[in-house]
């Protein structure tokens, strides 16, 4: 029972996250759209009980690539890198105060965007650099919002570890 519930929440949150990533937005708000999948994966791998592995990041990345018509493996690689870093250092990061955690998340999201941009550049897809730095900012804000919304549950989860 407990096992099935622990599967249900993350899987549903991931599917919703994928959907959020492609929901149409008005043009004026469009550049503000955070990288939902990256934010949620970072949230779970930094704060959650150890739920998402690299393989999840890989499959989610492929799903984004398929949905958005990007180069197959592009988002997968970017997600892999940031989830690996978060996973590798999560014990050290966990003792950080919230402000420093938020900065870490911002840096990781920036790295994510940079890898996407870099690959775009290598394969010669012409994409503008402008406004690429906005999604990491909104992503960090969303991450903070999630932190404050779900903090209690997470603290309990952390206490269990």
């Amino acid at each position, binding site marked *: 029972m407990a096992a099935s519930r622990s599967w249900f929440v993350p899987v549903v949150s991931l599917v919703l996250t994928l959907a959020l990533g492609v929901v149409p937005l008005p043009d004026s708000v469009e550049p503000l759209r955070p990288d939902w999948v990256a934010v949620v994966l970072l949230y779970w791998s930094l704060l959650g009980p150890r739920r998402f592995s690299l393989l999840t990041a890989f499959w989610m990345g492929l799903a984004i690539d398929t949905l958005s018509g990007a180069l197959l493996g592009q988002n997968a690689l970017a997600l892999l890198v940031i989830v690996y870093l978060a996973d*590798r250092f999560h014990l050290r990061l966990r003792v950080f105060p919230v402000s420093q955690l938020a900065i870490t998340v911002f840096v990781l999201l920036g790295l994510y965007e940079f890898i996407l941009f870099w690959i775009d550049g290598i394969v010669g897809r*012409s994409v503008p650099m402008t406004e690429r730095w906005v999604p990491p900012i909104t992503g960090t804000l969303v991450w903070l919002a999630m932190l404050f919304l779900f903090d209690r549950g997470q603290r309990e989860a952390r206490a269990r570890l």
Partner: protein
Amino acid sequence: MSAPGRTAAGFGRSGFSLGVRFVLLAIVCVALMMLDQRQQHLQRVRQALSVVVYPVRVLVDLPFRTWQSAAVNFTERSALIAENEQLKRERLEAEFRLQRLAALETENERLRQLLDSTERVGLRALVAKILSVDLNPYRQRFDLNRGVTDGVYVGQALLDAQGIVGQIVRVDAFTAEAVLITDADTAVPVSVNRNGLRTIAVGTGDSGRLRLPYLTNSADIKVGDLLVSSGIGGVFPAGYPVGRVVEVRLQPEQSFSEIIAEPASALDRDLEVLLVWNDQPAPGEPKAAAPPAAARLGEASTSKLADAN
């Protein structure tokens, strides 16, 4: 590095350490990207994956679809009557034009036979809905609700009521990805309707602008000229409106002038587009069997488009 919680399972745990798993998966990613970029070997993989993520597309599209149908359901009766009357009027006009066109088409066909030319006038079309799914904001692309099962193919042209919209760049099982003519990576061979001057219209990445970079300062083109597809290259059917010239700036210091055109079709407002098959046998020959979906839609959508404008 062994976190206490790490052993508490998750998705796809394996015996390898974190670093090894990362390197292996990263190599897979890079290999996928290289295969995807160099050759089109991954078509099947993409199609399989797209079937997996299809529910997500439906999930995203559903609220918008529901909202649209609800909006139709709750429209005022008087508004519906007015709309109905307007549509009737428009239909009458369209039929009137169609009669004339039918005559012209037969005449054209006869003349072409005289000239022993093989150009085909008839086209088969299928209505496709644009899915309310936002793709990469940096590219002018969208998804359609038709795929391999409807006979859609890569390179197929898309039209709307006003003119040429774009072409198909990727086909999955149930969906297809199309690129607009205004995407920075696409170009349409066009000719100026007034004098037949041929050139190429290039996308700008802005859905309201096309560029004509290959016309010299002495070219006979002016603001208001209608650009129609020339059919050269074989992707887009000939004779459909592509855009209208809105700005001609001569650049005396350079040999080419800067010419901007506005797309004829409502690129950012369309909800439905027409997929066009250019492969129909010439009039007179027996018709090729339409794909099942086209047959299901009936006469209304599988209409034979004349060179209308």
